[in-house]
């Protein structure tokens, strides 16, 4: 005999995420919510309000800042935290570079992978034992394997070959000293679910998710943004194109797509028709190696 609930699709996902958020807060001593200003973290923050208001959130917001942010994203991050009256902790990759725990191949090298180091340092400094993140299983084949409550050892490492069993919705959040959990309330959401939820809930996002003119250069299948850290090379043709970002990450590895979708409903229509996956269309960091995400996660990445 099987059982079902009558909730509609988005209501079901919303309620599950709220349930997970509350379990995460109840089962940890010192949690934090990863908030980058990107769309998934904006959705996660919105769900956290639904889970905990009228009280204040039982955790601070944490941003691991590569310092290579697109315009408007850090303002959005700061303004959002201030508007909600929630505490924001910013951990700078720049600080890790100064300390010597991160060494870059060149000053403009991608700081994306270095985020893991800064994140682990921040976990140690603040004593965080659980981090809530907006990652979804449909993003990547390694993420597709991850538990909702993802256990990390004392080095912050994910061990995909011996994950804890995770039965029904009975989450076991128990830890030994020094270990931590990464918890993903949006595990079962797809990109389309995120956008339809943003539309329904009228969740604010940084402008660069919507179509705008931007200087870009062609790089294989990508339009690479021209920015202070990713200038055009000698002789490269800089074009001004109508584009939007499908994901927002470090400037060195995130590319926009050509699009005239200027509002959420146009983005939803485009997402329905898209034949490229979200990361496939936008992320250079995953192209380097087939198992790029898995390797980063083993090193302590979100």
């Amino acid at each position, binding site marked *: 005999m099987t059982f079902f*609930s009558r909730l509609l699709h988005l209501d079901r996902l919303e309620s599950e995420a709220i349930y997970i958020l509350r379990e995460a807060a109840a089962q940890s001593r010192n949690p934090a919510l990863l908030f980058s200003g990107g769309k998934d973290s904006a959705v996660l923050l919105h769900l956290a309000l639904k889970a905990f208001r009228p009280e204040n959130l039982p955790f601070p917001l944490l941003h691991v800042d590569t310092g290579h942010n697109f315009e408007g994203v850090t303002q959005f991050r700061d303004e959002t935290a201030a508007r909600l009256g929630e505490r924001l902790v910013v951990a700078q990759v720049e600080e890790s570079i100064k300390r010597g725990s991160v060494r870059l191949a060149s000053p403009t090298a991608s700081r994306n992978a270095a985020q893991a180091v800064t994140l682990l340092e921040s976990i140690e400094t603040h004593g965080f034992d659980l981090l809530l993140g907006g990652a979804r299983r449909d993003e990547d084949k390694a993420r597709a394997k991850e538990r909702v409550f993802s256990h990390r050892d004392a080095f912050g490492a994910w061990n995909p070959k011996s994950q804890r069993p995770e039965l029904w919705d009975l989450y076991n959040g128990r830890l030994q000293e020094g270990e931590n959990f990464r918890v993903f309330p949006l595990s079962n959401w797809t990109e389309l679910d995120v956008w339809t939820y943003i539309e329904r809930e009228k969740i604010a996002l940084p402008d660069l998710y919507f179509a705008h003119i931007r200087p870009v250069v062609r790089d294989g299948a990508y339009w690479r943004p021209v920015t202070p850290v990713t200038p055009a090379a000698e002789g490269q043709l800089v074009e001004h194109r109508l584009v939007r970002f499908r994901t927002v990450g470090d400037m060195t590895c995130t590319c926009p797509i050509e699009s005239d979708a200027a509002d959420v409903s146009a983005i939803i229509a485009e997402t329905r028709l898209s034949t490229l996956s979200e990361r496939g269309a936008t992320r250079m960091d995953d192209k380097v190696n087939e198992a790029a995400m898995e390797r980063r996660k083993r090193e302590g990445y979100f």
Partner: protein
Amino acid sequence: MTQTQTKLVRIVTAGSVDDGKSTLIGRILHDSKALMSDQVDALSHARFSRAEEGDLDLSFVTDGLESEREQGITIDVAYRYFATPQTSFIVIDAPGHEQYTRNMVTGASNADVAIVLVDASRLHQGALKVQTRRHATIAHLLGLKVVFAVNKMDLVNWSQKVFQDVEESLKRLSRSLGITNPAIVPINARSGDNVVSKSPAASWYQGASLLDILQNQGDGTDLSELPFRFSIQRVVRIDGHTKAAQRGYAGRIASGQVAVGDEIFVGPYRRPTKITRIETYDQSLDRAEAGQSVTLYTEDEVDAARGDLLTNGNVAYANRITADLCWLDDQAWESRRRYILQQGTANITSRIESVLHIRDMQDLSEVRGDQALKLNDIALVQLQTQTPILADLFQDNPKTGAFILIDPDTNQTAAAGMIRGVA
């Protein structure tokens, strides 16, 4: 977009290693146009691919870890999502190796239907493999609907005779487990015959394609029709320490419905009170039902806390229960040890008093006696708890009839449990 009423179907694969589970999931996603072109592209270049030139190794759609691809096996479950106009699917690919049974149990506990695959070409006189029996048993114990797929029919030239032999064995297995009228579908996961659409390869097969069968099952039982059950996740305090201070109880309704004015009862001692308000972030509701996350306010100070249970009073609590266990921990059961029993949000100290029987996976017989419970064992046990627990039977209410046992020293999840009776 307005929300449409889509049915949710959660599917897990099951069966022995190499019988084609991962390939089947890849095939379902591929033929349902649920793979993106860059993902297909990545498959065609993938290292360790077992496919011939120009072909795709569809098992890599879910076998996404480096070591899985290198070894050509599935180690842990992968979750993938796709939708047809009427149904949204979660497909969960599980590993076949005995060593990874706990991962299969993880996948099965999050599914409604299990597709148990059998390799038609590797059955000697119709004898099913141990893992086929083990997985069918687990799926059935966890309350899943079981659908059988007889795979690799190409390797036996779509022989109706071979299919009938396998079918006979599967029917015998079903009878011994108490599975009634299971669907049994001949398929070729690699080429897709009978997977998403019916194939001309087997003119003798009268049934529907596998995906049609998965899509068109009955709905089952509506959780909101069951008795009201609500595990408190969090106590909410409004206006802190003032006289007008109010305590609310946040949680997700496990089953049943609740309305303002309803009389409800807290915990095993059944302190009664009335619901005065049902709140969400931005709404005050008159009523709410199974699946909704809400905050409930009560008339009296009932002094309830996280882990306490609110019910409609139609309820049995017990100190001693019988339960089916799937043992998941590398460390075997130790009779003197206490385990934390987690049911809903409650954590209760418990002890396994006796092992009533362990299932023998060779012939599914029940072996009596007080053997040690070890990794991958499936057993019926008698449990004692320090304080009374809600004794809803798993088959009546899987939301409250399920629990896990946690080893308090290692923090490992030691077992998955299903309440079967009051002892």
